[in-house]
């Protein structure tokens, strides 16, 4: 027989960016432990709609942990209590019968709340636009082995590139710093020869944009790395610091 649990949800409701939000409690019964966290929220919303109430607004897209669209700060952890997964990969088997589950939006000055649990993460796009790319005039396709790249570098660049830009690092950071995100995006290029060409300009431009958008400073607590669904390492932050300091000393 399928196991089900009864839970109480304490969800942040906020009608708009300028309005004051508050927690509201919802009781849900007979939730299958096999359902995902977002499916559970779908069930809640269906009930709310049937009762004629406003459904809870939250972000989601692919629901398989690769798009970086889902967020939610669940019981004090971005992406919930499980490790190395996004909220969409979180299942109700991680919770017990009778649990009170507190669901909050990412809270950071850089990510203003749009409504309920949905925040505006456009700041990350602006940081990418500031320098998170390589300028290439595409010609003929060269052979993949034309530029030799050490395996270790390729692996580390790939690990950095696994960042999906969900913003859990900012949500977890007590300073609301986006350093893990920015450092991953700087590293994925800085480690490869194609990205080296613009490395100095990129580090300066992306960091300046990050500061401008109101994110905090890094205190090296490591909370971002611990909560990152993709396990991006804070050694990337050391690389960003190095790239930035080197670039500034050269100026």
């Amino acid at each position, binding site marked *: 027989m399928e196991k089900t649990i009864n839970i109480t949800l304490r969800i942040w409701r906020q009608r708009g960016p300028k309005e004051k939000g508050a927690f509201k409690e919802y009781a849900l019964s007979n939730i299958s432990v096999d359902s995902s966290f977002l499916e559970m929220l779908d069930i809640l919303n269906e009930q709310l709609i049937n009762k004629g109430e406003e459904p809870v607004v939250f972000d989601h897209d692919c629901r398989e942990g690769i798009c970086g669209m889902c967020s939610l700060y669940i019981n004090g952890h971005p992406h919930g209590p499980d490790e190395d997964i996004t909220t969409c990969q979180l299942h109700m088997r991680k919770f017990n019968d009778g649990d009170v589950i507190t669901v909050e939006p990412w809270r950071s000055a850089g990510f203003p709340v749009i409504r309920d649990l949905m925040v505006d993460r456009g700041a990350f796009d602006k940081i990418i636009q500031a320098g998170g790319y390589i300028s290439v005039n595409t010609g003929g396709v060269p052979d993949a082995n034309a530029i030799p790249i050490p395996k270790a570098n390729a692996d580390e660049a790939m690990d950095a590139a696994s960042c999906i830009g969900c913003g859990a690092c900012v949500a977890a950071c007590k300073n609301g710093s986006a*350093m893990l995100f920015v450092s991953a995006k700087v590293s994925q290029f800085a480690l490869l020869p194609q990205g080296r060409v613009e490395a100095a300009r990129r580090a300066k431009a992306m960091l300046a944009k990050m500061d401008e958008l109101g994110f905090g*400073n890094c205190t090296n607590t490591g909370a971002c790395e611990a909560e990152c669904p993709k396990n991006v390492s804070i050694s990337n932050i050391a690389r960003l610091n190095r790239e930035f300091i080197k670039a500034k000393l050269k100026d």
Partner: protein
Amino acid sequence: MWLLNSSIGKKVVMSITGLFLILFLTFHMSMNVVAIFSGEAYNMICEFLGANWYALVGTLVIAGGAVLHILYAFWLTYINRRARGNDRYKVVDKPQGVEWASQNMLVLGIIIALGLLLHLYDFWFKMQFNEITGILPDVNPHDGYGLIAEKFANPAIAVAYLVWFVAIWFHLTHGFWSALQTLGWNNKIWLSRWKCISCIYMTVICLGFAAVAIYFGFIA
């Protein structure tokens, strides 16, 4: 100026002043330990430093470093709190592997600064400052040994200093490796190495200071 405008620049100032203060503490501890072995040798050091020009220049540089470190700490904390936004989380659960000290550096720093004021009054005021101004004619500014023995004869003072050293230990174990990380001198392999070196180095410094307090408070 990037040391004023950029987030990494501000952290670089914190790192360099912090590492400089750690270097100062290393020398300070080495000299203090001498007092356990020989009062005469310790007073020789006090006389050698005293209010000579090089000691005065050194004092000014150290004070400058400390003031910069403290000013930047408050400035950065202000920016960080603003970046956190107006609404705070209702439920906060510390993630695994996050050092307690790393999230409470300002609080630890304030405790250290308050202890420092007391410490300056207890010793620096009666030694270097006294030598320059002659404000306390009854106190010999070069008898550091006598001052230590007198101060720590009260075990309550010794215990207060020991508590202070614990706060310094927490502040520095995070501060040392964190400074190197901020200066970019880190990678996947050295991350755990620096943390380990940090722990050993700061334990040695704090044990050195504690040894003097324990020796004069409870043994001598």
